[in-house]
Protein backbone atom coordinates (compact mmCIF):
# COMPACT_ATOMS: atom_id res chain seq x y z
CA UNK A 1 0.00 0.00 0.00
CA UNK A 2 1.33 3.39 -1.00
CA UNK A 3 -0.51 6.36 0.40
CA UNK A 4 0.12 9.73 1.94
CA UNK A 5 -0.48 8.50 5.46
CA UNK A 6 1.65 8.03 8.52
CA UNK A 7 0.24 5.27 10.73
CA UNK A 8 -3.02 3.75 9.48
CA UNK A 9 -4.52 4.28 12.93
CA UNK A 10 -3.90 8.02 12.63
CA UNK A 11 -5.39 8.36 9.15
CA UNK A 12 -8.75 9.82 10.14
CA UNK A 13 -7.42 12.00 12.91
CA UNK A 14 -4.57 13.51 10.92
CA UNK A 15 -6.75 14.14 7.92
CA UNK A 16 -9.13 16.05 10.19
CA UNK A 17 -6.24 17.99 11.68
CA UNK A 18 -5.28 19.02 8.17
CA UNK A 19 -8.85 20.05 7.41
CA UNK A 20 -8.99 22.14 10.57
CA UNK A 21 -5.62 23.73 9.86
CA UNK A 22 -6.61 24.58 6.31
CA UNK A 23 -10.03 26.10 6.93
CA UNK A 24 -10.27 27.66 10.39
CA UNK A 25 -12.64 30.28 9.00
CA UNK A 26 -15.13 27.61 7.92
CA UNK A 27 -14.91 24.66 10.30
CA UNK A 28 -13.68 23.54 13.67
CA UNK A 29 -12.93 19.99 14.73
CA UNK A 30 -13.73 18.51 18.13
CA UNK A 31 -11.90 15.35 19.17
CA UNK A 32 -12.97 12.59 21.56
CA UNK A 33 -15.71 12.37 20.57
CA UNK A 34 -14.84 13.46 17.07
CA UNK A 35 -16.94 15.77 14.95
CA UNK A 36 -16.47 18.66 12.53
CA UNK A 37 -18.72 21.67 12.97
CA UNK A 38 -19.40 25.07 11.48
CA UNK A 39 -17.01 27.65 12.88
CA UNK A 40 -19.99 29.87 13.67
CA UNK A 41 -22.15 27.17 15.34
CA UNK A 42 -24.70 27.24 16.81
CA UNK A 43 -26.78 29.35 14.43
CA UNK A 44 -29.56 30.64 16.57
CA UNK A 45 -33.07 29.67 15.57
CA UNK A 46 -31.94 27.55 12.63
CA UNK A 47 -32.53 23.81 12.48
CA UNK A 48 -29.11 22.19 12.56
CA UNK A 49 -28.28 19.39 10.14
CA UNK A 50 -25.89 16.65 11.16
CA UNK A 51 -24.69 13.83 9.04
CA UNK A 52 -21.95 11.32 9.45
CA UNK A 53 -20.74 7.92 8.54
CA UNK A 54 -17.56 6.01 8.07
CA UNK A 55 -14.54 7.94 6.85
CA UNK A 56 -13.04 7.26 3.44
CA UNK A 57 -15.77 8.99 1.45
CA UNK A 58 -14.22 12.45 1.55
CA UNK A 59 -15.19 15.15 0.87
CA UNK A 60 -18.47 13.69 2.18
CA UNK A 61 -19.37 14.54 4.93
CA UNK A 62 -16.65 16.62 6.58
CA UNK A 63 -16.10 18.69 3.44
CA UNK A 64 -19.74 19.72 3.39
CA UNK A 65 -19.85 21.48 6.74
CA UNK A 66 -20.58 25.18 6.44
CA UNK A 67 -23.12 27.80 5.54
CA UNK A 68 -25.96 26.35 3.49
CA UNK A 69 -25.14 22.71 4.07
CA UNK A 70 -24.19 20.76 7.23
CA UNK A 71 -23.83 22.13 10.73
CA UNK A 72 -21.78 19.15 11.81
CA UNK A 73 -20.38 15.92 10.44
CA UNK A 74 -19.41 12.88 12.50
CA UNK A 75 -16.66 10.85 10.85
CA UNK A 76 -16.19 7.26 11.99
CA UNK A 77 -13.15 5.13 11.37
CA UNK A 78 -12.63 4.21 7.71
CA UNK A 79 -15.86 2.64 6.43
CA UNK A 80 -17.12 2.23 9.99
CA UNK A 81 -20.08 4.18 11.16
CA UNK A 82 -19.42 6.69 13.92
CA UNK A 83 -20.63 6.15 17.47
CA UNK A 84 -23.66 7.63 19.25
CA UNK A 85 -21.58 9.82 21.55
CA UNK A 86 -20.10 11.62 18.55
CA UNK A 87 -23.56 12.39 17.22
CA UNK A 88 -24.88 13.41 20.60
CA UNK A 89 -22.00 15.77 21.37
CA UNK A 90 -22.23 17.25 17.89
CA UNK A 91 -25.95 17.82 18.44
CA UNK A 92 -25.27 19.62 21.69
CA UNK A 93 -22.67 21.83 20.04
CA UNK A 94 -24.70 22.93 17.01
CA UNK A 95 -28.24 22.97 18.39
CA UNK A 96 -29.58 26.46 17.77
CA UNK A 97 -32.81 25.75 19.60
CA UNK A 98 -34.81 24.70 16.55
CA UNK A 99 -33.89 21.04 16.65
CA UNK A 100 -31.60 18.72 14.76
CA UNK A 101 -32.06 16.73 11.57
CA UNK A 102 -29.87 13.66 11.30
CA UNK A 103 -29.29 12.59 7.69
CA UNK A 104 -28.33 8.93 7.84
CA UNK A 105 -27.27 6.53 5.14
CA UNK A 106 -29.10 3.21 5.19
CA UNK A 107 -26.49 0.82 6.60
CA UNK A 108 -27.15 -1.35 9.60
CA UNK A 109 -24.24 0.18 11.48
CA UNK A 110 -25.19 3.77 10.73
CA UNK A 111 -28.82 3.16 11.54
CA UNK A 112 -28.16 1.50 14.86
CA UNK A 113 -25.68 4.13 15.98
CA UNK A 114 -27.87 7.04 14.90
CA UNK A 115 -30.89 5.40 16.53
CA UNK A 116 -29.05 5.27 19.80
CA UNK A 117 -27.97 8.88 19.34
CA UNK A 118 -31.55 9.93 18.67
CA UNK A 119 -32.72 8.25 21.84
CA UNK A 120 -29.90 9.83 23.82
CA UNK A 121 -30.56 13.32 22.41
CA UNK A 122 -34.18 13.05 23.44
CA UNK A 123 -33.23 12.28 27.02
CA UNK A 124 -31.00 15.35 26.85
CA UNK A 125 -33.97 17.45 25.78
CA UNK A 126 -32.81 18.05 22.21
CA UNK A 127 -35.38 17.66 19.45
CA UNK A 128 -34.12 15.29 16.80
CA UNK A 129 -35.62 13.89 13.63
CA UNK A 130 -33.75 11.43 11.49
CA UNK A 131 -34.13 10.62 7.80
CA UNK A 132 -32.60 7.64 6.04
CA UNK A 133 -31.13 7.85 2.55
CA UNK A 134 -31.51 4.63 0.53
CA UNK A 135 -31.01 5.40 -3.14
CA UNK A 136 -28.77 2.67 -4.50
CA UNK A 137 -30.77 0.82 -7.14
CA UNK A 138 -28.13 -1.90 -7.28
CA UNK A 139 -29.81 -3.44 -4.26
CA UNK A 140 -32.94 -4.87 -5.73
CA UNK A 141 -35.16 -6.06 -2.94
CA UNK A 142 -35.72 -4.78 0.54
CA UNK A 143 -37.21 -7.98 1.90
CA UNK A 144 -34.09 -10.08 1.79
CA UNK A 145 -31.51 -7.42 2.40
CA UNK A 146 -30.80 -4.51 4.64
CA UNK A 147 -32.53 -2.52 1.89
CA UNK A 148 -30.95 -0.13 -0.54
CA UNK A 149 -27.74 1.57 0.51
CA UNK A 150 -27.44 5.28 0.89
CA UNK A 151 -25.03 6.71 -1.68
CA UNK A 152 -24.94 9.73 -4.03
CA UNK A 153 -28.30 11.20 -3.10
CA UNK A 154 -26.88 11.85 0.36
CA UNK A 155 -24.72 14.66 -1.02
CA UNK A 156 -27.66 16.22 -2.84
CA UNK A 157 -29.94 15.91 0.20
CA UNK A 158 -27.35 17.59 2.37
CA UNK A 159 -27.07 20.51 -0.05
CA UNK A 160 -30.78 20.94 -0.59
CA UNK A 161 -31.76 20.55 3.06
CA UNK A 162 -28.85 22.72 4.12
CA UNK A 163 -30.21 25.54 1.98
CA UNK A 164 -33.71 24.99 3.34
CA UNK A 165 -32.49 25.13 6.93
CA UNK A 166 -30.66 28.32 6.10
CA UNK A 167 -33.92 29.72 4.70
CA UNK A 168 -35.75 28.96 7.92
CA UNK A 169 -37.56 25.67 7.34
CA UNK A 170 -38.70 24.18 10.64
CA UNK A 171 -37.64 20.70 11.73
CA UNK A 172 -40.68 18.80 10.48
CA UNK A 173 -40.74 20.57 7.12
CA UNK A 174 -37.03 19.90 6.73
CA UNK A 175 -37.47 16.21 7.52
CA UNK A 176 -40.29 16.01 4.98
CA UNK A 177 -38.12 17.69 2.35
CA UNK A 178 -35.23 15.35 3.07
CA UNK A 179 -37.48 12.30 2.73
CA UNK A 180 -38.76 13.67 -0.56
CA UNK A 181 -35.25 14.22 -1.91
CA UNK A 182 -34.39 10.66 -0.96
CA UNK A 183 -37.44 9.21 -2.67
CA UNK A 184 -36.64 11.14 -5.84
CA UNK A 185 -32.99 10.14 -5.96
CA UNK A 186 -31.48 7.03 -7.54
CA UNK A 187 -27.86 5.97 -7.83
CA UNK A 188 -25.74 3.22 -9.31
CA UNK A 189 -21.97 2.72 -9.36
CA UNK A 190 -19.16 0.85 -11.08
CA UNK A 191 -15.70 0.04 -9.77
CA UNK A 192 -12.72 -0.47 -12.05
CA UNK A 193 -10.37 -1.14 -9.14
CA UNK A 194 -10.78 -1.92 -5.49
CA UNK A 195 -9.85 0.61 -2.88
CA UNK A 196 -7.28 -0.12 -0.19
CA UNK A 197 -8.30 0.44 3.41
CA UNK A 198 -5.23 1.86 5.21
CA UNK A 199 -5.55 -0.44 8.22
CA UNK A 200 -5.77 -3.50 6.00
CA UNK A 201 -3.09 -2.38 3.58
CA UNK A 202 -4.17 -4.53 0.65
CA UNK A 203 -7.08 -4.12 -1.80
CA UNK A 204 -10.42 -5.24 -0.40
CA UNK A 205 -11.15 -7.24 -3.52
CA UNK A 206 -9.15 -8.24 -6.54
CA UNK A 207 -10.27 -7.32 -10.02
CA UNK A 208 -8.61 -8.71 -13.11
CA UNK A 209 -7.07 -6.40 -15.69
CA UNK A 210 -10.22 -6.48 -17.76
CA UNK A 211 -12.85 -6.79 -15.06
CA UNK A 212 -15.21 -4.36 -13.41
CA UNK A 213 -17.67 -4.61 -10.54
CA UNK A 214 -21.08 -3.22 -11.23
CA UNK A 215 -23.54 -2.22 -8.55
CA UNK A 216 -20.95 -1.38 -5.93
CA UNK A 217 -21.55 0.59 -2.78
CA UNK A 218 -19.10 3.05 -1.32
CA UNK A 219 -17.27 0.82 1.13
CA UNK A 220 -15.09 -1.17 -1.17
CA UNK A 221 -17.52 -4.04 -0.89
CA UNK A 222 -17.83 -6.13 -4.05
CA UNK A 223 -20.83 -5.32 -6.23
CA UNK A 224 -23.67 -7.45 -7.49
CA UNK A 225 -21.95 -8.54 -10.64
CA UNK A 226 -18.51 -8.85 -12.13
CA UNK A 227 -18.26 -8.24 -15.86
CA UNK A 228 -15.51 -7.65 -18.32
CA UNK A 229 -14.87 -3.96 -18.87
CA UNK A 230 -16.80 -2.13 -21.52
CA UNK A 231 -16.55 1.19 -23.27
CA UNK A 232 -17.46 4.36 -21.38
CA UNK A 233 -20.65 4.64 -23.40
CA UNK A 234 -21.72 1.09 -22.58
CA UNK A 235 -20.90 1.46 -18.90
CA UNK A 236 -22.78 4.74 -18.75
CA UNK A 237 -25.73 3.15 -20.44
CA UNK A 238 -25.80 0.27 -17.96
CA UNK A 239 -25.80 2.70 -15.06
CA UNK A 240 -28.29 5.12 -16.55
CA UNK A 241 -30.79 2.53 -17.69
CA UNK A 242 -30.75 0.71 -14.36
CA UNK A 243 -32.01 3.94 -12.85
CA UNK A 244 -34.28 5.17 -15.58
CA UNK A 245 -35.98 1.81 -15.97
CA UNK A 246 -36.06 1.14 -12.24
CA UNK A 247 -39.44 -0.19 -11.17
CA UNK A 248 -41.21 1.40 -8.20
CA UNK A 249 -39.35 0.52 -5.04
CA UNK A 250 -41.28 0.21 -1.85
CA UNK A 251 -39.88 -0.37 1.59
CA UNK A 252 -40.61 0.04 5.24
CA UNK A 253 -38.39 2.53 7.00
CA UNK A 254 -38.10 3.32 10.65
CA UNK A 255 -38.56 6.96 11.58
CA UNK A 256 -38.52 8.56 14.97
CA UNK A 257 -41.93 9.72 16.19
CA UNK A 258 -41.25 12.76 18.30
CA UNK A 259 -44.61 12.81 20.00
CA UNK A 260 -44.73 9.14 20.91
CA UNK A 261 -41.03 9.10 21.59
CA UNK A 262 -40.53 5.87 19.73
CA UNK A 263 -39.62 4.40 16.38
CA UNK A 264 -42.44 3.86 13.93
CA UNK A 265 -42.49 2.04 10.60
CA UNK A 266 -43.39 4.09 7.54
CA UNK A 267 -44.14 2.71 4.09
CA UNK A 268 -42.37 4.59 1.34
CA UNK A 269 -42.47 4.23 -2.46
CA UNK A 270 -40.28 5.96 -5.03
CA UNK A 271 -42.04 8.00 -7.70
CA UNK A 272 -41.15 6.73 -11.18
CA UNK A 273 -39.11 8.75 -13.64
CA UNK A 274 -41.32 10.06 -16.42
CA UNK A 275 -40.93 11.85 -19.73
CA UNK A 276 -40.53 15.55 -19.18
CA UNK A 277 -39.09 15.18 -15.68
CA UNK A 278 -36.43 17.65 -14.69
CA UNK A 279 -33.29 16.05 -13.34
CA UNK A 280 -30.16 16.84 -11.47
CA UNK A 281 -27.46 14.55 -12.93
CA UNK A 282 -24.60 13.84 -10.59
CA UNK A 283 -21.57 12.07 -12.05
CA UNK A 284 -19.27 11.13 -9.22
CA UNK A 285 -15.73 9.81 -9.07
CA UNK A 286 -15.05 7.05 -6.56
CA UNK A 287 -11.76 8.79 -5.76
CA UNK A 288 -9.26 7.60 -8.34
CA UNK A 289 -11.07 8.43 -11.58
CA UNK A 290 -10.07 11.81 -13.01
CA UNK A 291 -12.58 14.45 -14.03
CA UNK A 292 -11.70 14.10 -17.72
CA UNK A 293 -13.28 10.63 -17.67
CA UNK A 294 -16.31 11.85 -15.73
CA UNK A 295 -17.06 14.25 -18.56
CA UNK A 296 -17.00 11.37 -21.03
CA UNK A 297 -19.59 9.64 -18.85
CA UNK A 298 -21.61 12.84 -18.59
CA UNK A 299 -21.57 13.24 -22.35
CA UNK A 300 -23.27 9.88 -22.86
CA UNK A 301 -25.58 10.35 -19.90
CA UNK A 302 -26.86 13.62 -21.34
CA UNK A 303 -27.48 11.90 -24.65
CA UNK A 304 -29.42 9.06 -23.03
CA UNK A 305 -31.54 11.39 -20.90
CA UNK A 306 -32.35 13.51 -23.91
CA UNK A 307 -33.48 10.43 -25.83
CA UNK A 308 -35.64 9.35 -22.93
CA UNK A 309 -37.29 12.77 -22.72
CA UNK A 310 -35.64 13.55 -19.40
CA UNK A 311 -34.37 17.08 -18.95
CA UNK A 312 -31.09 17.55 -17.11
CA UNK A 313 -31.45 21.05 -15.66
CA UNK A 314 -28.66 20.89 -13.09
CA UNK A 315 -25.53 18.80 -12.72
CA UNK A 316 -22.67 18.05 -10.37
CA UNK A 317 -19.50 16.42 -11.68
CA UNK A 318 -16.52 15.47 -9.59
CA UNK A 319 -15.29 13.43 -6.63
CA UNK A 320 -17.86 14.10 -3.91
CA UNK A 321 -18.70 10.72 -2.35
CA UNK A 322 -15.72 8.47 -2.73
CA UNK A 323 -14.27 5.14 -1.63
CA UNK A 324 -10.73 6.15 -0.77
CA UNK A 325 -8.60 5.65 -3.88
CA UNK A 326 -11.03 3.47 -5.84
CA UNK A 327 -11.17 3.99 -9.60
CA UNK A 328 -14.77 4.01 -10.64
CA UNK A 329 -17.76 6.20 -10.95
CA UNK A 330 -21.35 6.46 -9.87
CA UNK A 331 -24.28 8.29 -11.34
CA UNK A 332 -27.12 9.78 -9.33
CA UNK A 333 -30.30 11.04 -10.95
CA UNK A 334 -32.47 13.24 -8.79
CA UNK A 335 -35.92 14.18 -9.99
CA UNK A 336 -36.32 17.87 -9.24
CA UNK A 337 -39.23 20.15 -8.51
CA UNK A 338 -39.03 23.94 -8.44
CA UNK A 339 -38.53 24.04 -4.71
CA UNK A 340 -35.55 21.71 -4.93
CA UNK A 341 -34.07 23.69 -7.84
CA UNK A 342 -34.23 26.92 -5.92
CA UNK A 343 -32.64 25.26 -2.90
CA UNK A 344 -29.94 23.67 -5.03
CA UNK A 345 -29.04 27.05 -6.50
CA UNK A 346 -28.94 28.78 -3.12
CA UNK A 347 -25.52 29.89 -1.85
CA UNK A 348 -23.32 27.31 -0.17
CA UNK A 349 -19.96 27.82 1.45
CA UNK A 350 -18.20 24.66 2.55
CA UNK A 351 -14.67 23.48 1.96
CA UNK A 352 -15.66 21.23 -0.93
CA UNK A 353 -18.86 22.68 -2.35
CA UNK A 354 -19.16 26.37 -2.83
CA UNK A 355 -21.08 28.80 -4.94
CA UNK A 356 -23.10 31.97 -4.76
CA UNK A 357 -20.90 33.41 -2.05
Amino acid sequence: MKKFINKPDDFVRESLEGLAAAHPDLVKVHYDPTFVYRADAPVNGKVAIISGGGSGHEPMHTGFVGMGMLDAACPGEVFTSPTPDQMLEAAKKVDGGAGILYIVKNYSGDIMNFEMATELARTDGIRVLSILIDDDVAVKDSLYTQGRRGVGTTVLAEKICGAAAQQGYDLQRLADLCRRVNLNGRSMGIALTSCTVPAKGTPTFELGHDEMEIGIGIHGEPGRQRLSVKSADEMTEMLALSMIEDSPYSRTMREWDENQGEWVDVELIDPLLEQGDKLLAFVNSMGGTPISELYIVYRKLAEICEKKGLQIVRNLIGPYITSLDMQGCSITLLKLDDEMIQLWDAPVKTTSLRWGV
Partner: protein
Amino acid sequence: MLTKEQILQWLQTFAAQIEQNKDYLTELDAAIGDADHGMNMDRGFKKVILQLPTVADKDIGSILKTVSMTLISSVGGASGPLYGTLFLQASTVVAGQQELSDNDVHQMLKAGLNGVLQRGKAQLGDKTMVDVLSPAVSAFQQALSEGNNILEAMQQAVTAAEQGMKDTTPLVAKKGRASYLGERSIGHQDPGATSSYLMLKSLLTVLESSLG
Protein backbone atom coordinates in the same frame (compact mmCIF):
# COMPACT_ATOMS: atom_id res chain seq x y z
CA MET B 1 -21.24 -20.52 39.36
CA LEU B 2 -19.25 -17.67 37.85
CA THR B 3 -17.26 -15.28 40.01
CA LYS B 4 -16.45 -11.67 39.28
CA GLU B 5 -12.82 -12.70 38.75
CA GLN B 6 -13.93 -15.16 36.12
CA ILE B 7 -15.98 -12.48 34.42
CA LEU B 8 -12.90 -10.28 34.32
CA GLN B 9 -10.79 -13.17 33.04
CA TRP B 10 -13.43 -13.84 30.38
CA LEU B 11 -13.28 -10.26 29.12
CA GLN B 12 -9.50 -10.37 29.08
CA THR B 13 -9.43 -13.70 27.28
CA PHE B 14 -11.93 -12.48 24.73
CA ALA B 15 -9.94 -9.28 24.18
CA ALA B 16 -6.81 -11.37 23.64
CA GLN B 17 -8.66 -13.68 21.24
CA ILE B 18 -9.86 -10.68 19.27
CA GLU B 19 -6.38 -9.26 19.04
CA GLN B 20 -5.04 -12.62 17.92
CA ASN B 21 -7.77 -13.08 15.33
CA LYS B 22 -7.95 -9.46 14.23
CA ASP B 23 -6.63 -10.06 10.73
CA TYR B 24 -8.66 -13.21 10.33
CA LEU B 25 -11.89 -11.43 11.22
CA THR B 26 -11.01 -8.60 8.87
CA GLU B 27 -10.29 -11.03 6.07
CA LEU B 28 -13.69 -12.64 6.59
CA ASP B 29 -15.24 -9.18 6.44
CA ALA B 30 -13.27 -8.31 3.30
CA ALA B 31 -14.93 -11.20 1.49
CA ILE B 32 -18.51 -10.16 2.16
CA GLY B 33 -18.32 -6.83 3.94
CA ASP B 34 -15.98 -3.89 4.21
CA ALA B 35 -12.85 -5.33 5.75
CA ASP B 36 -13.05 -3.80 9.20
CA HIS B 37 -14.66 -6.21 11.64
CA GLY B 38 -11.36 -7.29 13.20
CA MET B 39 -10.20 -3.71 13.51
CA ASN B 40 -13.51 -2.57 14.95
CA MET B 41 -13.62 -5.26 17.62
CA ASP B 42 -9.98 -4.87 18.47
CA ARG B 43 -10.28 -1.12 18.86
CA GLY B 44 -13.22 -1.62 21.19
CA PHE B 45 -11.71 -4.34 23.34
CA LYS B 46 -8.39 -2.56 23.66
CA LYS B 47 -10.39 0.29 25.20
CA VAL B 48 -12.29 -2.19 27.37
CA ILE B 49 -9.01 -3.56 28.73
CA LEU B 50 -7.97 -0.03 29.65
CA GLN B 51 -11.27 0.57 31.42
CA LEU B 52 -11.46 -2.71 33.37
CA PRO B 53 -9.09 -1.72 36.22
CA THR B 54 -11.25 1.32 36.98
CA VAL B 55 -14.29 -0.88 37.67
CA ALA B 56 -12.66 -4.09 38.86
CA ASP B 57 -13.89 -3.55 42.39
CA LYS B 58 -17.48 -2.87 41.35
CA ASP B 59 -20.21 -5.47 40.83
CA ILE B 60 -20.58 -7.60 37.75
CA GLY B 61 -23.46 -5.50 36.46
CA SER B 62 -21.36 -2.35 36.62
CA ILE B 63 -18.46 -4.08 34.94
CA LEU B 64 -20.59 -5.27 32.05
CA LYS B 65 -22.23 -1.87 31.75
CA THR B 66 -18.81 -0.27 31.43
CA VAL B 67 -17.91 -2.79 28.75
CA SER B 68 -21.10 -1.86 26.97
CA MET B 69 -20.54 1.88 27.12
CA THR B 70 -16.95 1.50 26.03
CA LEU B 71 -17.92 -0.62 23.05
CA ILE B 72 -20.75 1.71 22.06
CA SER B 73 -18.49 4.74 22.05
CA SER B 74 -15.47 3.18 20.40
CA VAL B 75 -16.42 0.39 17.99
CA GLY B 76 -18.92 1.99 15.64
CA GLY B 77 -20.20 0.12 12.60
CA ALA B 78 -22.80 -2.57 13.11
CA SER B 79 -20.86 -4.52 15.68
CA GLY B 80 -20.51 -1.56 18.06
CA PRO B 81 -24.20 -1.10 18.83
CA LEU B 82 -24.80 -4.86 18.66
CA TYR B 83 -22.11 -5.94 21.10
CA GLY B 84 -22.79 -2.77 23.07
CA THR B 85 -26.44 -3.67 23.44
CA LEU B 86 -25.55 -7.27 24.17
CA PHE B 87 -23.44 -6.26 27.15
CA LEU B 88 -25.92 -3.57 28.18
CA GLN B 89 -28.83 -6.00 28.38
CA ALA B 90 -26.62 -8.61 30.00
CA SER B 91 -25.59 -6.08 32.64
CA THR B 92 -29.13 -5.25 33.66
CA VAL B 93 -30.00 -8.81 34.67
CA VAL B 94 -26.89 -9.15 36.84
CA ALA B 95 -26.91 -5.66 38.35
CA GLY B 96 -25.39 -5.49 41.83
CA GLN B 97 -24.11 -9.07 41.82
CA GLN B 98 -20.61 -10.20 42.81
CA GLU B 99 -21.09 -13.72 41.55
CA LEU B 100 -23.54 -15.50 39.28
CA SER B 101 -25.42 -18.72 39.71
CA ASP B 102 -25.61 -21.03 36.72
CA ASN B 103 -29.08 -19.71 36.05
CA ASP B 104 -27.85 -16.12 36.32
CA VAL B 105 -25.36 -16.97 33.62
CA HIS B 106 -28.14 -18.30 31.46
CA GLN B 107 -30.24 -15.18 32.07
CA MET B 108 -27.27 -13.02 31.26
CA LEU B 109 -26.56 -14.78 27.98
CA LYS B 110 -30.22 -14.74 27.04
CA ALA B 111 -30.57 -11.05 27.81
CA GLY B 112 -27.50 -10.37 25.65
CA LEU B 113 -28.97 -12.33 22.76
CA ASN B 114 -32.25 -10.49 23.11
CA GLY B 115 -30.44 -7.18 23.03
CA VAL B 116 -28.85 -8.15 19.73
CA LEU B 117 -32.18 -9.28 18.33
CA GLN B 118 -33.90 -6.07 19.39
CA ARG B 119 -31.20 -3.78 18.09
CA GLY B 120 -30.45 -5.59 14.84
CA LYS B 121 -33.80 -7.19 13.96
CA ALA B 122 -32.03 -10.17 12.46
CA GLN B 123 -33.55 -13.61 12.42
CA LEU B 124 -31.93 -17.00 12.68
CA GLY B 125 -30.44 -17.85 9.30
CA ASP B 126 -29.79 -14.24 8.25
CA LYS B 127 -26.05 -14.98 8.41
CA THR B 128 -25.21 -12.84 11.41
CA MET B 129 -23.92 -13.24 14.95
CA VAL B 130 -27.43 -14.31 15.88
CA ASP B 131 -26.72 -17.63 14.14
CA VAL B 132 -24.09 -18.30 16.78
CA LEU B 133 -25.65 -16.69 19.83
CA SER B 134 -29.09 -18.14 19.45
CA PRO B 135 -28.20 -21.87 19.21
CA ALA B 136 -25.56 -21.41 21.87
CA VAL B 137 -28.01 -19.94 24.36
CA SER B 138 -30.48 -22.70 23.60
CA ALA B 139 -27.85 -25.40 24.04
CA PHE B 140 -26.74 -23.84 27.30
CA GLN B 141 -30.27 -23.78 28.67
CA GLN B 142 -30.94 -27.30 27.45
CA ALA B 143 -27.78 -28.60 29.09
CA LEU B 144 -28.56 -26.92 32.39
CA SER B 145 -32.12 -28.23 32.34
CA GLU B 146 -30.69 -31.72 31.82
CA GLY B 147 -28.74 -31.27 35.03
CA ASN B 148 -25.29 -30.48 33.62
CA ASN B 149 -23.00 -28.12 35.45
CA ILE B 150 -21.93 -24.81 34.03
CA LEU B 151 -18.76 -26.18 32.50
CA GLU B 152 -20.60 -28.94 30.69
CA ALA B 153 -23.36 -26.55 29.65
CA MET B 154 -20.82 -24.12 28.30
CA GLN B 155 -19.06 -26.91 26.42
CA GLN B 156 -22.31 -27.74 24.70
CA ALA B 157 -23.04 -24.07 24.07
CA VAL B 158 -19.66 -23.65 22.38
CA THR B 159 -20.17 -26.78 20.31
CA ALA B 160 -23.49 -25.34 19.14
CA ALA B 161 -21.85 -21.96 18.57
CA GLU B 162 -19.10 -23.50 16.45
CA GLN B 163 -21.67 -25.38 14.42
CA GLY B 164 -23.74 -22.21 14.04
CA MET B 165 -20.67 -20.31 12.93
CA LYS B 166 -19.73 -22.90 10.33
CA ASP B 167 -23.31 -23.11 9.16
CA THR B 168 -23.29 -19.44 8.22
CA THR B 169 -21.01 -20.30 5.28
CA PRO B 170 -23.64 -21.64 2.87
CA LEU B 171 -26.21 -19.01 3.85
CA VAL B 172 -27.33 -15.99 1.84
CA ALA B 173 -26.91 -12.93 4.07
CA LYS B 174 -30.06 -10.98 4.77
CA LYS B 175 -28.80 -8.42 7.26
CA GLY B 176 -25.78 -6.15 7.39
CA ARG B 177 -23.51 -5.25 4.56
CA ALA B 178 -23.13 -8.82 3.35
CA SER B 179 -26.80 -8.77 2.34
CA TYR B 180 -25.97 -6.44 -0.56
CA LEU B 181 -24.03 -9.27 -2.13
CA GLY B 182 -27.09 -11.48 -2.43
CA GLU B 183 -26.14 -14.92 -3.71
CA ARG B 184 -22.51 -13.93 -3.78
CA SER B 185 -22.43 -13.98 0.01
CA ILE B 186 -22.73 -17.78 -0.18
CA GLY B 187 -19.55 -19.68 0.62
CA HIS B 188 -18.16 -17.26 3.18
CA GLN B 189 -18.30 -17.52 6.95
CA ASP B 190 -19.87 -14.52 8.67
CA PRO B 191 -17.34 -12.36 10.54
CA GLY B 192 -19.73 -11.31 13.32
CA ALA B 193 -20.73 -14.93 13.89
CA THR B 194 -17.06 -15.73 14.18
CA SER B 195 -16.36 -13.08 16.79
CA SER B 196 -19.41 -14.21 18.75
CA TYR B 197 -18.07 -17.75 18.71
CA LEU B 198 -14.76 -16.45 20.06
CA MET B 199 -16.64 -14.66 22.83
CA LEU B 200 -18.32 -17.86 23.97
CA LYS B 201 -15.19 -19.93 23.55
CA SER B 202 -13.33 -17.45 25.74
CA LEU B 203 -15.85 -17.99 28.50
CA LEU B 204 -15.39 -21.73 28.17
CA THR B 205 -11.63 -21.34 28.34
CA VAL B 206 -11.97 -19.48 31.63
CA LEU B 207 -14.28 -22.12 33.06
CA GLU B 208 -12.00 -24.94 31.94
CA SER B 209 -8.91 -23.36 33.43
CA SER B 210 -10.66 -22.68 36.75
CA LEU B 211 -12.34 -26.05 37.10
CA GLY B 212 -10.14 -28.28 35.02
